[in-house]
């Protein structure tokens, strides 16, 4: 896969550095997503009750297992910066690639904004506990985004090594809370009586509605393939790192639901800003409170860090291909990072972090992710049809095709309905945005794109063309 960029036009240009291993891929995927355990997932309990929250956790886990299986096959074969964007370019076409690039940028930039909002909220909560109410959250939101953008500007290895460490600590904090509560460290007993007294407060439709925020447990795991061009061995590292990531998250998500549902009344849990930290507060154990405060801070920072990394790679890739002004396709001469894309996306994240409510920002991110998962279904079918298994060498072949694709499409349809239950306006507005942007690209922007350069893989001609 090392010749991906070598087949591009023979111009002298700087390349991204291949320095990452499987552990970095795991850290990138889990690092972005683990924050979903620390905040946001619990809105699914609010939308459907405790049982619906658990059902959403597992159904969304199934959806993301399909995503990871499909993504591992395609990405291990098309290992280029931009991940799904590069896949769409080679399999569906330029306009689809442009849209996928926008899905990625929007999903990750909104997730980054949500993380920054949570940092501000958490510090405000802790300041209140210390007797300093009314903390101004905005400086902390701005500082978080600016610091992480600077870190990304300076280099990918330092950025993802930083992520590896703080992600591991945040994951261990969840395990520590789970084990401590099992060993009786909580001053208040766990209580699951709501499972029998209010099993489904909204009926069965609540389970579907809960799937909306159930996606938040795992949203962003597909980000592992954004770093494909910076991985030493894509065929090995990408499937290994991604699948290890989804297994980690399934375990963490189930433990999180169990601890939070046992320690917090479901009505409170359904609207809490920092549920794991709140669960630690209920235990009355200062050590656990400090640990979960650190875990929440680290998970939000790791997630925002990974989001900046991924969004900037997608934006950079589009600039390099002239889908966006080519000015964005520059690599820093010293740090070898897509520095202009990193800097450009900072104010966009700030606009939403400082001006929109958390649940709205989370919904924007989920919607863009959902559109991306829908793309993956027909992208996988087209990939196998245009290049059957025997025609090109794949780094990984996912089993049971087309079952994962069918399951993914079915769950995506359910998730659209779940978002419609309460957030239909955002969905419609977002669809209008993507339709207008698509027409803009096809009728205006595409004339600046070099046709032949859009296909850089050393593959035979696709079947049917």
């Amino acid at each position, binding site marked *: 896969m090392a010749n991906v960029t070598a087949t591009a036009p023979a111009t002298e240009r700087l390349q991204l550095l291949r320095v990452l291993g499987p552990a970095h891929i795991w850290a990138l995927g889990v690092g972005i997503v683990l924050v979903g355990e620390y905040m946001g997932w619990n809105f699914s309990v609010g939308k459907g009750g405790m049982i619906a929250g658990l059902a959403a956790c597992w159904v969304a886990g199934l959806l993301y297992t399909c995503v990871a299986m499909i993504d591992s096959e395609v990405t291990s074969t098309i290992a280029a910066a931009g991940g799904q964007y590069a896949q769409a370019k080679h399999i*569906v076409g330029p306009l689809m690639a442009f849209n996928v690039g926008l899905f990625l940028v929007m999903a990750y930039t909104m997730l980054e904004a949500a993380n920054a909002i949570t940092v501000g909220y958490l510090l405000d909560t802790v300041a209140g506990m210390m007797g300093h109410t009314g903390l101004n959250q905005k400086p902390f939101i701005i500082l978080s985004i600016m610091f992480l953008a600077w870190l990304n500007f300076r280099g990918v290895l330092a950025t993802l090594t930083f992520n590896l460490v703080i992600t591991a600590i945040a994951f261990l904090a969840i395990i520590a809370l789970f084990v401590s509560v099992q060993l009786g460290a909580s001053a*208040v007993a766990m209580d699951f009586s709501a499972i029998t007294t209010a099993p489904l407060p909204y009926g069965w439709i609540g389970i579907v509605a809960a799937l909306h925020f159930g996606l938040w447990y795992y949203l962003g795991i597909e980000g592992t393939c954004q770093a494909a061009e910076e991985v030493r061995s894509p065929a090995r590292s990408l499937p290994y790192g991604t699948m290890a990531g989804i297994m980690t998250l399934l375990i963490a998500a189930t433990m999180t639901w169990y601890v939070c549902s046992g320690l917090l009344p479901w009505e409170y849990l359904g609207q809490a800003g920092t549920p794991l930290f709140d669960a630690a507060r209920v235990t009355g154990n200062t050590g656990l409170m400090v640990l979960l405060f650190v875990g929440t801070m680290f998970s939000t920072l790791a997630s925002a860090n990974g989001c900046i990394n991924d969004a900037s790679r997608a934006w950079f890739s589009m600039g390099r291909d002239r889908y966006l002004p080519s000015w964005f396709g520059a690599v820093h001469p010293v740090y070898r990072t897509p520095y202009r894309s990193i800097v450009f996306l900072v104010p966009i994240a700030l606009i939403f972090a400082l001006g929109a409510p958390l649940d709205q920002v989370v919904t924007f991110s989920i919607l863009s992710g959902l559109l991306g998962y829908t793309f993956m279904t027909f992208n996988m079918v087209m990939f196998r049809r245009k290049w059957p298994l025997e025609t090109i060498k794949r780094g990984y072949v996912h089993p049971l095709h087309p079952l994962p694709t069918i399951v993914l499409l079915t769950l995506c349809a359910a998730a659209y309905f779940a978002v419609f239950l309460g957030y239909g306006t955002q969905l419609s*507005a977002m669809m*209008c945005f993507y339709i207008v942007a698509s027409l803009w690209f096809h009728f205006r922007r595409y004339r*600046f794109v070099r046709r032949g350069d859009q296909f850089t893989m050393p593959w035979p001609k696709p079947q049917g063309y």
Partner: protein
Amino acid sequence: MAYQPPKQGLAGQVFDVITLLVLTVGALYLPLYLGFAGAAKTPNPIANPTWEALGQNATEAKQWAAIGIADPAAANDIITARFDYSFNWLPLIVMAVLVVGYFVLVVRLSDREYREVIEERFDPKRR
């Protein structure tokens, strides 16, 4: 002969970026500003709330106290708030048409572009 795209000047590049920015911020912020976005829960507070009346047992009451809400009246709105999931079929059909129509549009236009890409990439006369 391979397609040679025109060179885009600085003004054109800036214009394109501003167009995308306006589209993005506009589409995402307009529903918020117009008050169309979000599914606010509607509280249905009860009179003279007690933990028992609010359906909370003794352990749950301790949990509320541990997160700083010791007075049932302060939890009244949180506990009694509910989403409204009643919906009309027309908006649902409009949404479905938008989603499906969007993907059909993108895939069809993409295929037209993709054929040009493949033709140029694999036809030796056009490289």
